């Protein structure tokens, strides 16, 4: 890990909600360093602050304390224009595909917006259609069937795949996936993960998974960060953290997941 290929770096990142009696420290002095092209997972239970961290990385909420460095330079999103520039390099997929779309916009509009955002506003219509068809083909959807449809006419898995098609057009530097498969059943999960990994291999982007599914984190990621109550308690390569956990909380998380080959120990319930 050298300094020059650091993609996203956080130093002492803190987020506090409320004040006085209701003061809650959601993220507490978190340090991290994501390299370019790395696949990272941030794992934690509900309420551990992982989504708050994701929102801070995206610039959706302000940072109470600490700094975020993007590609070696301090991140600057003080104006709307700078924020828009920043969002060209970082994009996200959220948990609930149903609430990720504007229900009044057709699917063509969703994809056209992405082309415009990349500066393809003046491309001829045929070229735009070609890009959209290619993007839909990448995620095994047929653009001819989708055109003129509204998002609610698609199934959950199809919507999530369309979300990946958006990312395919935008080709950001960083993709943040916040529980991308938790609302999808186990069979479609493999399809979605395969597509994300294929996309990463083609574009070389940094992929950040936010998840509570420790098995998924182990399968996809190079390095794993474990969060508990806003604090980062363990970090390291996936093999290190999952197969040889140091922290008691990590061990508990791994023990609580049902296994296939090993016996599932039910006696250690808290």
């Amino acid at each position, binding site marked *: 890990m050298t300094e020059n290929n650091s993609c996203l770096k956080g130093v002492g990142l803190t987020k506090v909600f409320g004040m006085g009696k209701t003061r809650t420290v959601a993220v507490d002095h978190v340090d991290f360093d994501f390299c370019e092209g790395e696949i990272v997972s941030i794992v934690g*239970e*509900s309420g551990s602050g992982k989504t708050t961290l994701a929102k801070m990385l995206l610039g959706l909420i302000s940072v109470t304390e600490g700094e975020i460095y993007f590609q070696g330079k301090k991140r600057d999103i003080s104006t709307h224009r700078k924020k828009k520039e920043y969002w060209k390099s970082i994009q996200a997929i959220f948990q609930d595909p149903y609430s990720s779309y504007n229900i009044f916009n057709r699917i063509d509009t969703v994809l056209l917006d992405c082309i415009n955002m990349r500066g393809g506003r003046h491309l001829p219509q045929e070229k735009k259609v070609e890009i959209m068809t290619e993007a839909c083909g990448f995620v*095994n959807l047929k653009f001819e069937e989708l055109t003129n449809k509204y998002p609610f006419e698609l*199934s959950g898995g199809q919507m999530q795949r369309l979300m990946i098609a958006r990312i395919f057009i935008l080709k950001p530097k960083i993709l943040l996936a916040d529980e991308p498969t938790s609302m999808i*059943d*186990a*069979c*479609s*999960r*493999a*399809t979605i*993960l*395969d597509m994300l990994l294929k996309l990463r291999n083609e574009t070389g982007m940094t992929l950040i998974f936010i998840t*509570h*599914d*420790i*098995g*998924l*984190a*182990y*399968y996809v990621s190079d390095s794993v960060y474990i969060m508990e109550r806003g604090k980062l308690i363990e970090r390291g390569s*996936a*093999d290190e953290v*999952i*197969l040889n956990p140091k922290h008691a909380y990590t061990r*508990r*998380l*791994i023990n*609580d*997941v*049902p*296994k*296939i*080959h*090993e016996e*599932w120990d*039910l006696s250690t*319930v*808290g």
Partner: protein
Amino acid sequence: MGNVMLEVKDLTTKYITRFQEDVYAVDHVSLKVEEGKSLGIAGESGCGKSTLALSLMGYYFPPLHYMSGDIIIDGRNISKMEPDDIRKSILGKEIAYIPQAAMNALNPTQKVIRFIEDVVQAHDPFMTRKDIYDLARSCFETLGLPANVLEKYPVELSGGMKQRTVIAISVILFPKVLIADEPSSALDVTSQKMVIKMLRNLMENGFIKSMIFITHELPLLKNVTDDIMVMYAGQIVEKGTAEQTVFDPIHPYAKGLMGSIIVPESGLRKVKLTAIPGVPPNLKKPPHGCRFADRCRYVTAECRMHPIEIRQADGEREYRCIFSEDELRKAYQND
């Protein structure tokens, strides 16, 4: 061989929609659960798992309708009974059901003990409140729930605790069969473990005699149930013990499902996940031949010609495929 608690023969139920398009969500399903055993049902979303659970109770409300087949609970055929009789004498007493979001079933304005009084008095109107309280208390204690939950309102309980409370209420009359429809999929891993531990407890303490567990999480099924049944498009495609189905599936669809398992174990990173391409067929117009044909890698022209019958394999296993066990195994080896 123990007593057969629940036996289902050729059960077919359908949804009748407004446009005269019938959806056969459960199509000639037969199954058998013995005393002290649990059966897991696996499958994708939309394959009819939950509809099967609703059908097994024998209590149908539109648009779900009963077509044919028998449901026999401990020697008593309930498939031809009147809905009112079923509600009075079967539900809760013979067969209990835990829906997916069971924790939302509790009325927030009533204490937990009132729900228990409701359930018990519906079946035994002469039981006094004190007796009911004692029964509930002993039941909760055996199941490892604190007795002060009885005096609380549902909003005071956490999600996992609410779920366990609902399970405790549903088994208060000692049903013979418990149907659990994804009881833990809305919970985090720690609460899930507690729910599973409790379901195991129920069986060991004699609260229930048999269980049907529905989920799409195969690692969970392997750890909870004795047998696993894989459903696809309203039909059973494979049935066997949990070990056999998970480690050594016969049907191509079951094989595909097992290829999508993700668990934090060493060796997982070397395995490549195999996703099944395509989507399940529309049950308004199911294919005439094999329903899995469009997504199967080993499909032949003959597969689509006529409906596939279920076949027997070694060790009381069943599968629904045109190929024999040996042919399928050879095909898997060549991949």
